């Protein structure tokens, strides 16, 4: 009887631990940047959602294309209408895993890591490995990354007329402040 009670208590305690096993950020920042002498293009979203599984080192991102905003309204319209086709492909996703993950990474100061996973943009999935940073900053778990993607690889055609205004490789910046999931 006492043994059973003990098991129950342990289980409930472990359930709490499971709750702590994931970290979430509902307002992660994602931007993409293209700079040419003719035009700078900067799209920013502060509404990306990301979850980090502390048990396995798995990490997932989702961003609605329509949450990206631009200085020029026309750019935003073209981004959604002509390039990303946001009604057809409303979300960009990343599902990956931290290379050589161990849970101490989450309690150490910010340090360099690598993440490998599948980036899904414009309905095209590609496996990529990107450099990132992860760790504690002022007692909070933060993650960030800066990497490049080539729109053409994701079936995003850039017409020759505007080719000079858009770089071949977009610079993607990601920043997330993680909070324990379920709180």
């Amino acid at each position, binding site marked *: 009887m006492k043994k059973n009670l003990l098991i129950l208590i342990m289980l409930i305690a472990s359930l709490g631990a499971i*709750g702590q096993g994931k970290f979430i950020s509902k307002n992660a920042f994602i931007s993409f940047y293209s700079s040419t002498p003719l035009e700078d293009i900067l799209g920013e979203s502060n509404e990306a959602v990301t979850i980090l599984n502390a048990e396995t080192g798995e990490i*997932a991102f989702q961003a609605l294309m329509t949450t990206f905003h631009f*200085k020029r309204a*026309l750019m935003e*319209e073209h981004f959604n209408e002509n390039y990303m086709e946001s009604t057809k492909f409303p979300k960009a996703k990343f599902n990956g895993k931290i290379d050589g993950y161990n849970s101490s990474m989450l309690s150490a100061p910010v340090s360099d890591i690598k993440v490998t996973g599948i980036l899904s943009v414009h309905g095209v999935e590609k496996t990529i490995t990107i450099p990132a940073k992860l760790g504690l900053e002022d007692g909070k778990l933060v993650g960030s990354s800066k990497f490049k993607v080539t729109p053409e690889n994701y079936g995003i055609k850039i*017409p020759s007329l505007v080719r000079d205004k858009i770089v071949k490789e977009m610079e993607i910046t990601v920043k997330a402040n993680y909070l324990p999931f379920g709180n």
Partner: protein
Amino acid sequence: MKKIISVCIGLTLFLSGNVFSQDLDALLNEETKPTVDFATATFKSTRIINGHSIEQMKKDQLEFRISHRFGTLNNGPYGLFGLDQSVIHFSLEYGLKDWLMVGTGRGSLNKTYDGFAKFRLLRQSSGAKFMPVSLSYFNSIELISLKFPERPAGTSNYFSSRLAYVSQLLIARKFNQNLSVQLTPTYIHRNLVKTELDQNDIFALGGGARYKLSKRLSVNAEYFYTYNPNAKFLEPRTYNACSVGVDIETGGHVFQIMLTNSQGMREGSFIPQTTGNWLDGDIHLGFNISRVFAFNNK
């Protein structure tokens, strides 16, 4: 007691197992709030062809528009199919708010000045909030600045005689990525008309549509039916305005090239005063060009 505990244990195991098996992606889907998806880019430009579309300049965006309508195609080769003559209209149009756009312009036809405001009342949306159509209200004043003709002694001209007022409801629906349709009930009041038989108050219904052939090319058509046109025997005879055209988009520019039976480019002229007849070849080639400038600092 034992039973209860084992049930508890079972339940706990079941629940915790459930949490584990949940895919991160599915968790993310749960955490993403349902969004309201507004229909954007119902039309490529703030005009379908001659008339206003549901589109507005967004806040702090300025558009400079230049439009030309040439003479009629039935001028023949001697007049290079109308290219020898042209009327111009240019305007500056600005988004004060995302829902309010104002503009002012000048047209060479009848030396007209105009000012307008376009208010967005409803936005077509799906997702968390469903709205089948977009609705805007358009209002403008047009001022004909032609010199007044000589008047008989003892009568005088009034400034108010130069003015006309236009009110329109723009009701549009983007049916899919390619097809958008708009209905435009219109009321026009002209303070002064040529003869007693001309109408001061004009009621019309406009219909317009666009179909996208590719991401940057669309075909457009527009028709304005006037319920109380001028009597048929009045000269020059007036017709309903009918236009077809294409929109070509190149980055910050939209080119609109059209064939239309009206030379006027403002509601007060092309709705009540279109004198061309398609069947007689009174067709004007024309184009609108617009360039958008952003004035917001971010």
